[in-house]
């Protein structure tokens, strides 16, 4: 089977770039390269990962400055041509600022940085990232202060109507409740995909749940699903 090549963008302040690199390369055995934010070369990547962290210190708004990095022009072109782009945590925030996904992130309702394992209900198992995933609930950690997803009513209607909500915060049984929502995110949204189905943004960190040594391996399902579906 042909396997995809991943490119992990490194912004000043990224801090999950090595986690993503390690998970993809050592845990899953795919090809991966780092992509420097000042470069304009995607090095033949089939998938671009915008990793978590605090790009540009989260100054102004999360992701607001990273969005104008030279490499982002290439990432936006790549996405507009159907290339697979996966934004994790701060990467999701960058995708929102870049307009590749709709909506914004507000501060967590609690105003606190939340760092813990959560359960995600897989709401759409027909995307390139989730097809054949074989599970309805995934256990993956979150670590963010601004993961409270917000979109206006029409945008939200569109997201739901087009099945663009991919992951929601849920109980271990897959029930979506207000109590389980860790950040106040609208309708419990943890991850969304664009209409075309190639750009995914998610606040939880699948790359931190790929190693048996960490006793968390549900993140592997997402990377594996992507690798299996990407060339089909």
């Amino acid at each position, binding site marked *: 089977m042909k396997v995809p090549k991943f490119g992990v963008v490194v912004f000043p302040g990224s801090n999950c770039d090595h986690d993503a690199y390690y998970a993809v390369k050592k845990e899953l055995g795919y090809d991966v390269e780092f992509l420097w934010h000042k470069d304009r070369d995607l090095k033949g990547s089939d998938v671009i990962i915008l990793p978590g962290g605090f790009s540009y210190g989260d100054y102004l708004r999360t992701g607001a400055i990273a969005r104008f990095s030279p490499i982002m022009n290439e990432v936006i072109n790549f996405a507009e041509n159907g290339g697979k782009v996966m934004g994790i945590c701060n990467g999701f925030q960058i995708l929102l600022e870049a307009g590749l996904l709709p909506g914004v992130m*507000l501060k*967590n309702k609690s*105003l606190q940085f939340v760092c813990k394992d959560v359960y995600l209900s897989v709401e759409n198992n027909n995307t390139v990232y989730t097809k054949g995933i074989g599970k309805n609930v995934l256990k993956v950690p979150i670590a963010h202060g601004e993961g409270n997803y917000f979109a206006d009513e029409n945008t939200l209607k569109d997201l739901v109507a087009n099945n663009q909500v991919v992951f929601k915060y849920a109980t271990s049984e897959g029930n979506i409740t207000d109590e389980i929502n860790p950040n106040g995110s609208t309708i419990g949204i943890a991850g969304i995909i664009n209409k075309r189905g190639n750009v995914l943004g998610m606040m939880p960190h699948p790359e931190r749940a790929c190693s048996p040594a960490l006793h968390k391996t549900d993140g592997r399902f997402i990377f594996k699903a992507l690798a299996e579906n990407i060339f089909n």
Partner: protein
Amino acid sequence: MYKATVVIKRRPSILDPQGKAVEKGAAHLGISNVRNTRIGKYIEFVVDTNDKQEAEKEVEEYCKKLLANPIMEDFEFTLNKES
């Protein structure tokens, strides 16, 4: 040269948990009559041109594309001529 001052406010429809938390602090201080605390941003800079229209255009673009996110924020700015 113009001096620009930009005020960025959260749109009325967007919750402001920060403002709410700060207001709770006010209550702890015994300041009991403050309501609807909302936290925004104040930004100032100079615009290096003497053409007011050009300055306005540039500040507007700066606000729209970078300083404010129109999904959740409104902005207003003033320009003052500096010698």
